[in-house]
């Protein structure tokens, strides 16, 4: 054992082993840090999504739910809570107000928090484990304003009268009805029967919330689903994504991609270095075998060295990855805890295991074939002068490498199909590089003959040059792709969130208030566009009535259950993109729909939609389809009707404004326009913005590692050909080539190879970047020739300098000694 260890130490003197270690460290670090970062973000997202539901699993129905479900859940040891909500009028003396009444049981909410305040302008506090006591209700500040009451007032709901005790400022499962007009009133579910409000005719929604261990929740879901009645369904985390989640998801994808690129690059470095390490060991093994070393000893000796190197790399990489992951989260942890409330999920240790597995898979797949070849080296070769590598089955090599690459991709993507697709992409990409590199070199050779580049012919023929171009191009491609995608992505994100991005939504503006409100805005220098907002329920498609039960998809059912926000205006919204059809441009009929809703509810261009808007019917044909950026912080609408077509419908107006440090204006505005509701989304805007900054920092980190991986690949590729170059230089020197000539030749060759590789990489990065932006990040395609230019320049510079630097030592050596070694 100590001997094996000593041999490992001795191998440290070979640059190849050090390079191998470096390549492994890079991949482990990247995998660990990105994994650490993303798993934290993902956990936070899940936690937030659970808060949106108020539990881990929600059973919802338009009819009271069977008690057997609750009994079963309790038998499994799960927590349960129930809520019943429906619209109802609240009254105080002669004043009436429509409210959204929500009766909850004592365990509510199972996930997330309730927050209340003593008065509309008082400090908000966490309401731990409490709901309104019997005979009391809590309500949103709007109810206080509408009814002009203070805390302590007595409010009548149905046949009961309640004491209005606190202002409800936050409830977990509210977000899905952000723009709900009626203020929420929270009451104890035990008070509900006495009100006699609940009748079979009331549009009530009965929810049963469950929370507990993941596997028990899954078990309950599996048991419940087959027995559900047609009116009942299960709601899970599969919710519409909020703008923050959309950003988080994109950033997760991007980081994953970045990590994948640097792992693939590091993998290439491992292939090259382990192959040249084994090639270097070939004579040693032949000598030792002649002395009596057995194959088992050879295998043990080298496998031990490789394994120890992998473990060392994994240890260093995991520590570095954790540190880097922590640094990336410094700002994020605090931010996430604000975002998801007090229970910030603990970081998982999976990424560390992933890092270790990455190192092992890299070595197993990439070093195993050359190791087996080494073991089978014939000692006889040592007597035959030229050392020839033992024959090896091509299928074994290809099989090992493909399996290892697939393993790596799977470790990153955790999806067999995606990993398969990525593998195919990678193979096609490298094949493409190979073909293009060969063609480009032949072209260079052809042109070289004309301009008298005497050494160029050699270049065109050699597989060595093609290999170098492919390797360099792959490395440069990763760097360029990352640079362009990163810059594009961040720029375009920033664009969607400019410094003056709206931070307040104003809703519930009465049409009569529109003119005075605009006056108020211009007086205070606030820019705002008012949009009509009409609440309508989709009742028929092409005159055929639609019901939630007609659809299997949960989202479709939800969309049909609640009312959509419709609008009508002349100017095409800047944050939308027209996908099909024509914008109204003066026409007075037609509907413009959002792409997603059309896909979900299965309607599109030319279909006739009928909406029920407070008893009135609106029927029209779809004349355009839009793509909407929900994270734009602008009012967005699923359906927009032609200008003028809905003026007679009951409506309010909505707008979004940027107040920044003029925030106190809100109070003045509400005082002047009491029925207007202001929703502060500044916090969300800041969250998205700080997330973008955080992600860009994370990407810089990954970028640095990809750069290191790229340089390691470059050196590994050069190192793998050094022996051959050494002989070649010796021959040229012995034929009388002077230093200056050789220098020119080396510079010329590497500058050309680098430029070719860079141009190829730029071209492919340009294409791939656009494809990725479009399909993965929902961004538009655009032509940016910078990668091509940058690739060519960067490639020739980087490869030229590295190539010369790698070989410069050989220029000083005497030809004889070159030949002897």
């Amino acid at each position, binding site marked *: 054992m100590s001997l094996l260890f000593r041999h490992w130490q001795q191998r440290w003197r070979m640059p190849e082993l050090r390079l191998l270690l470096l390549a492994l460290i890079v991949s482990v670090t990247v995998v660990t840090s990105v994994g650490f970062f993303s798993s934290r973000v993902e956990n936070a997202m899940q936690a937030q999504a659970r808060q949106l539901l108020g539990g881990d699993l929600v059973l919802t129905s338009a009819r009271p739910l069977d008690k057997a479900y609750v009994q079963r859940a309790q038998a499994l040891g799960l927590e349960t809570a129930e809520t019943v909500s429906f619209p109802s009028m609240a009254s105080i003396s002669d004043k009436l107000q429509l409210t959204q009444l929500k009766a909850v049981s004592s365990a509510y909410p199972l996930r997330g928090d309730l927050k209340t305040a003593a008065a509309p302008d008082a400090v908000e506090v966490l309401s731990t484990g409490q709901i309104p006591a019997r005979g009391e209700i809590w309500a949103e500040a709007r109810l206080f304003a509408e009814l002009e009451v203070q805390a302590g007032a007595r409010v009548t709901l149905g046949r009961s009268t309640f004491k209005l005790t606190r202002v409800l400022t936050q409830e977990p499962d509210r977000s899905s009805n952000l723009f709900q007009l009626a203020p929420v009133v929270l009451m104890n579910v035990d008070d509900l029967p006495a009100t006699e409000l609940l009748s079979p005719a009331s549009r009530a929604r009965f929810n049963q919330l469950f929370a507990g261990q993941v596997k028990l929740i899954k078990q309950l879901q599996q048991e419940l689903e087959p027995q559900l009645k047609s009116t009942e369904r299960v709601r899970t985390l599969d919710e519409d994504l909020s703008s923050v989640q959309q950003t988080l998801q994109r950033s997760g994808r991007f980081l994953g991609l970045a990590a994948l690129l640097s792992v693939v690059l590091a993998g290439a470095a491992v292939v090259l270095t382990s192959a040249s390490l084994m090639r270097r060991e070939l004579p040693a093994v032949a000598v030792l075998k*002649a002395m009596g070393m*057995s194959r088992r000893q050879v295998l043990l000796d080298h496998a031990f060295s490789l394994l120890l190197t992998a473990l060392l790399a994994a240890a260093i990489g995991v520590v570095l990855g954790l540190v880097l992951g922590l640094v990336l989260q410094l700002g994020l942890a605090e931010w996430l805890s604000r975002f998801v409330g007090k229970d910030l999920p603990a970081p998982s240790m999976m990424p560390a295991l992933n890092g270790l597995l990455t190192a092992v898979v890299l070595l197993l797949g990439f070093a195993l074939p050359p190791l087996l070849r080494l073991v089978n080296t014939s000692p*006889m070769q*040592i007597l035959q002068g030229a050392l020839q590598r033992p024959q090896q089955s091509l299928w074994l090599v290809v099989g090992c490498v493909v399996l290892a690459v697939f393993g790596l991709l799977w470790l990153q993507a955790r999806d067999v199909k995606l990993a398969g697709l990525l593998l195919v992409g990678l193979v096609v990409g490298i094949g493409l590089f190979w073909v293009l590199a060969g063609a480009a070199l032949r072209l260079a050779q052809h042109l070289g003959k004309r301009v008298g580049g005497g050494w160029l012919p050699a270049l065109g023929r050699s597989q060595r040059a093609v290999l170098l171009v492919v390797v360099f191009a792959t490395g440069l491609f990763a760097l360029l792709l990352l640079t362009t995608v990163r810059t594009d992505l961040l720029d375009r994100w920033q664009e969607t969130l400019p410094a003056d991005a709206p931070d307040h939504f104003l809703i519930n503006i009465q049409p009569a208030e529109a003119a005075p409100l605009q006056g108020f805005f211009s007086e205070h220098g606030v820019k705002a566009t008012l949009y009509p907002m009409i609440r309508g329920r989709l009742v028929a498609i092409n005159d055929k009535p639609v019901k939630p039960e007609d659809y299997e998809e949960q989202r479709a059912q939800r969309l049909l259950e609640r009312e959509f926000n419709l609008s009508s205006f002349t100017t095409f919204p800047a944050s939308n993109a027209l996908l099909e059809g024509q914008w109204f441009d003066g026409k007075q009929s037609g509907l413009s729909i959002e792409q997603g809703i059309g896909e979900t509810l299965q309607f599109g261009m030319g279909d006739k939609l009928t909406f029920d808007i407070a008893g009135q019917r609106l029927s029209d044909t779809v004349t355009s389809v839009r793509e909407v950026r929900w994270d734009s912080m602008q009012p967005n609408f699923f359906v927009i009707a032609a200008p003028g077509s809905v003026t007679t419908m009951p409506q309010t107006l909505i707008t979004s404004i940027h107040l920044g440090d003029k925030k106190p204006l809100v109070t003045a505005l509400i005082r002047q326009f009491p029925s207007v509701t202001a929703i502060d989304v500044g916090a969300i805007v800041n969250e998205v913005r700080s997330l973008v900054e955080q992600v860009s920092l994370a990407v810089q980190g990954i970028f640095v590692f990809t750069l290191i991986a790229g340089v390691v690949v470059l050196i590994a590729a050069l190192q793998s050909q050094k022996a051959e170059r050494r002989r070649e230089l010796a021959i040229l020197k012995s034929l009388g080539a002077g230093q200056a000539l050789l220098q020119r030749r080396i510079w010329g060759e590497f500058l050309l190879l680098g430029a070719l590789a860079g141009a190829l990489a730029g071209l492919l990065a340009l294409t791939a970047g656009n494809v990725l932006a479009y399909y993965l990040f929902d961004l538009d395609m655009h032509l940016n020739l910078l990668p091509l230019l940058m690739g060519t320049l960067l490639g020739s510079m980087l490869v030229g300098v590295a190539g010369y630097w790698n070989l410069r030592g050989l220029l000083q050596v005497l030809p004889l000694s070159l030949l002897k070694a």
Partner: protein
Amino acid sequence: MNKTVIQTTHLVKTIPQAGRELQILRGVSLAIDIGESVAITGLSGSGKSTLLGLLAGLDLPTSGTVTLFGQNLEGLDEDQRAALRLGRVGFVFQSFHLLENLTALENVMLPLELGASGTDRTRLATEALQQVGLAERLSHYPNQLSGGEQQRVALARAFVTRPQVLFADEPTGNLDRETGKEISDLLFTLQAQLQTTLVLVTHDETLAARCQQHYRLVEGALV
């Protein structure tokens, strides 16, 4: 006691080349006694190195038999043949074949490390290097040594296990005349001191003349 250490009968070696069988050795029979020094000479391509490889059991003949240390090599696999050589056979090569990442001392320790543990490898290797006059060069790497010095290290490495047989393949082939002379003097001195059987392949007739036995190979056959 049997005093023959290596014996061959009708050794034939053919290799496939360009679709045909190329015969490298055509029925070589010889016997080498313990402590004897034997030279095998011949032109380039006469099959000298192939014969050396077969004698040492590095490869197997197409037909005929090789007996090494009284053991017929036929039917032994690569590892069994390696075990037979372990600690009893030394090698010296034309291009030295020292491990570049190891110091002179570590290179000499290598064959000791292959065998049983417990021996004081550092002491034995140091003594071996002292014997070849490189006491001052223990921690030098091969690229810091001259060609002659490198071959001395190779000699120390070959003799450090006190092998019964030493196979030398053109030991002076890469050296100038003077250094070559020094190396061959050292080789024969050590061989005599340790009473090692020496099998030497060379095309240097003066070197061959210093051996007790001299076989000449012409086109794969002894003459």
